[in-house]
């Protein structure tokens, strides 16, 4: 009896200690048991004073990623099974978390369980398939026959998609994240969900071919976006990356933005950072460490002044850029888009041959300046500055022909500059969640046009690829653009092609009134080592219909400019 009583008294005192009372307070209430209680309570008080420890954020994230990968790997052969949680009777253990958990678990154990309600417009379980070119087929979950897909089809999670040898396609997930599929690629959207309407959860199984993945995060919320190949799982962490799957599942990962965590079947993990690549043939233990991606030989760079946004559509139909409502998209492999108060930059590494359509949309009523720059072996070899006057049009399209990207000084030029009319050239599916999360780019977010264009040095995304000469050329030519006078809509194309010590500047009147210049840069191979030669050609303004077709002129002098 005595022993039991002291145990009960001890229990009462422990409860009081836990509530914040002192040892002495308890002892005062049990003076006759002081001798027995005091050492026990002092020992207990010492334990209560041990500070609470917790896991590091890094461990939490890393462990979560590994757990999810493990679970999915374990679950795949039995995709239909469903676990049963124990009956729950949570009381005071982490009360707040328990309430949330209880709600979730009640949902899970309910008969005829249905998904948690989500806003009507957001369909986490669906994705959009945009066919950019060629033949694309789909295989719905449970089906056995592949079907020819249609453009912008809404498909359900579980559907497989494959592209033919000449096809390009883009999968747009419900949060706006995209996977661009190269020819000969086969994937399945294994998971697409919106956990508690807060956390985006996307898993893409990639069986073959190459994907370019652009993951859309917000300032506070990064989605769980993973690409599972036969050998590894690639977990994105604020990322743009390409994943190539070859024979026997061999996987090549190349990261352009952020970090990608690679986890193999043995749960070994490796992080691959920006501008790094990793090749996995069997598993991570056998794989070499990530290595730097070689600097691209060729690069197309577009810079736009702050009063607008732009996008570029490549010859395959993929697009990268911004829309006026703030939605960003990046479907072109190895491209980067960045927006800052200084303007917008798009960079495309190793551009392919063909015609690029650049779309420029104003966000405020102001003139815009678009700089098109080609960089080869870290040297700026070609630049055109287009002044796009607000008085003429708000939105523009510029067609740029890159006929030989491997030798971009040789044969590239602007084909046309026209006000944007009709259908937008981009294949961008604006998902409701992406629209909700986007911040419209208006006067509040865009600075007034300062008359200069953003250059590589002003972009928010760091790059080492912009040659110093390019910046110099830009600043040198930006002064030649016409001012916004009250008399004439002063659109102009200012073209600068820079080689070592040679600068060619051609200033043109409004693109809508006179055909734009088309310079043949092959003539700019002259190298001058100590002096700078500048040739400026100004063509008078003329009032003609806005349709722009190239004409040709042949300037004289040390450098010849051909206007087609």
């Amino acid at each position, binding site marked *: 009896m005595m*022993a*039991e009583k*002291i*145990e*009960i008294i*001890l*229990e009462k005192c*422990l409860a009081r200690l*836990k509530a914040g009372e002192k040892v002495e307070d308890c002892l005062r209430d049990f003076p006759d048991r002081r001798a027995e209680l005091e050492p*026990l309570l002092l*020992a*207990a008080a*010492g*334990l*209560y*004073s*041990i*500070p609470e*420890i917790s*896991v590091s954020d890094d*461990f*939490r994230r890393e*462990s*979560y990623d*590994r*757990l*999810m990968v*493990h*679970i999915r790997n*374990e*679950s795949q052969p039995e*995709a*239909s*099974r*469903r*676990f049963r*949680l*124990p009956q*729950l*009777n*949570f*009381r*005071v*253990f*982490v009360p707040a978390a*328990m309430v*949330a*958990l209880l709600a*979730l*678990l009640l949902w*899970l154990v309910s008969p005829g*369980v249905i*998904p948690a309600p989500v806003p009507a417009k957001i369909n986490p379980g669906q994705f959009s398939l945009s066919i950019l070119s060629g033949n694309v087929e789909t295989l719905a*979950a449970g089906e056995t026959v592949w079907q020819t897909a249609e453009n912008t089809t809404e498909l359900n*999670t579980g559907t497989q998609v494959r592209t033919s040898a000449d096809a390009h396609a883009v999968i747009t997930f419900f949060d706006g994240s995209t996977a661009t599929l190269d020819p000969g690629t086969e994937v399945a959207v294994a*998971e697409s*969900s919106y*956990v*508690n309407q807060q956390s985006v*959860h996307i898993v893409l199984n990639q069986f073959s071919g190459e994907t370019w993945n652009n993951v859309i995060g917000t300032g506070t919320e990064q989605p769980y976006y993973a690409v599972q190949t036969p050998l590894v799982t690639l977990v994105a962490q604020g990322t743009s990356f390409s994943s190539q799957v070859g024979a026997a599942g061999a996987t090549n990962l190349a990261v352009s933005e952020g970090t990608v965590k690679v986890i193999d079947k043995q749960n070994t993990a490796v992080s691959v950072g920006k501008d790094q690549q990793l090749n996995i043939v069997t598993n991570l233990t056998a794989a070499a460490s990530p290595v730097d991606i070689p600097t691209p030989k060729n690069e197309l760079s577009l810079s736009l002044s702050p009063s607008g946004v732009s996008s570029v559509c490549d010859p395959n139909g993929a697009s990268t850029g911004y829309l006026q409502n703030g939605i960003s998209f990046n479907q072109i492999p190895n491209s980067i888009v960045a927006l800052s108060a200084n303007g917008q930059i798009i960079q495309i590494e190793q551009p392919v041959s063909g015609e690029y359509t650049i779309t420029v949309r104003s966000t405020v009523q102001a003139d815009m300046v678009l700089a098109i720059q080609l960089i080869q072996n870290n040297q700026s070899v070609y630049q055109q500055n287009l002044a796009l006057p607000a008085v003429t049009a708000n939105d523009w399209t510029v067609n740029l022909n890159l006929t030989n990207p491997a030798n971009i000084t040789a044969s590239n030029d602007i084909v046309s500059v026209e006000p944007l009319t009709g259908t937008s050239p981009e294949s961008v599916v604006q998902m409701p969640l992406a629209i909700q999360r986007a911040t419209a780019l208006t006067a509040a977010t865009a600075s007034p046009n300062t008359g200069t264009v953003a250059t590589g040095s002003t972009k928010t995304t760091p790059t080492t690829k912009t040659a110093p000469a390019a910046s110099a050329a830009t600043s040198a030519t930006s002064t030649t653009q016409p001012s916004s006078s009250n008399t004439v809509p002063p659109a102009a194309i200012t073209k600068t092609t820079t080689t070592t010590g040679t600068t060619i500047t051609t200033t043109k009147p409004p693109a809508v009134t006179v055909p734009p210049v088309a310079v043949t840069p092959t003539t700019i191979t002259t190298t001058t080592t100590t002096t700078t030669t500048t040739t400026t050609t100004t063509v008078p303004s003329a009032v003609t219909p806005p349709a722009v077709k190239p004409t040709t002129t042949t300037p004289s002098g040390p450098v010849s400019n051909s206007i087609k």
Partner: protein
Amino acid sequence: MAIEGDVEAFGVLYNTFLNQIFRYVFYQVNDRMKAEDITQEVFIKSWKSIQTCRGKEDTFAAWLYRIAHNHIVDTFRKNKQEISLELIDPVGDANTESEAEKSLEWQKAVAALKTLPEPQRQLIILKFLEGAENDEIGDIMGKRQGAIRALQMRALDNLRKKLRSGIE
């Protein structure tokens, strides 16, 4: 895709219980990295066996703690590893003299904890470091309330003696 909901749900469970399980493991193994490894294994193990969990325990937490406990016991058994008596500081470097003193006390308490018999150590960790109530502890340890109170008293008494004698 029924598994999809399960994965999401388990992710929520993981986030809810991660710290608790980590602490529980940490105070038993006295090594942060080892505790992290074991914690992760506990969740993987719990995922694997979640289908067989049919309400033997009153709470999910109790079930998870039981898995953690068994896993720790297995780990020690496999490695034939003695429990480390190395002093640790759960919160890192102390900035003041007072903090340093407190830190030393904590370290001693944690070190003494390691020397307790396994059920006593388990109870102390659950009750004083994890903040569990007696009925939950009873659920986890499979003991009645009276037994828990008696064990608690013995554990505190034992701990006091260890601390007084400088951990023998």
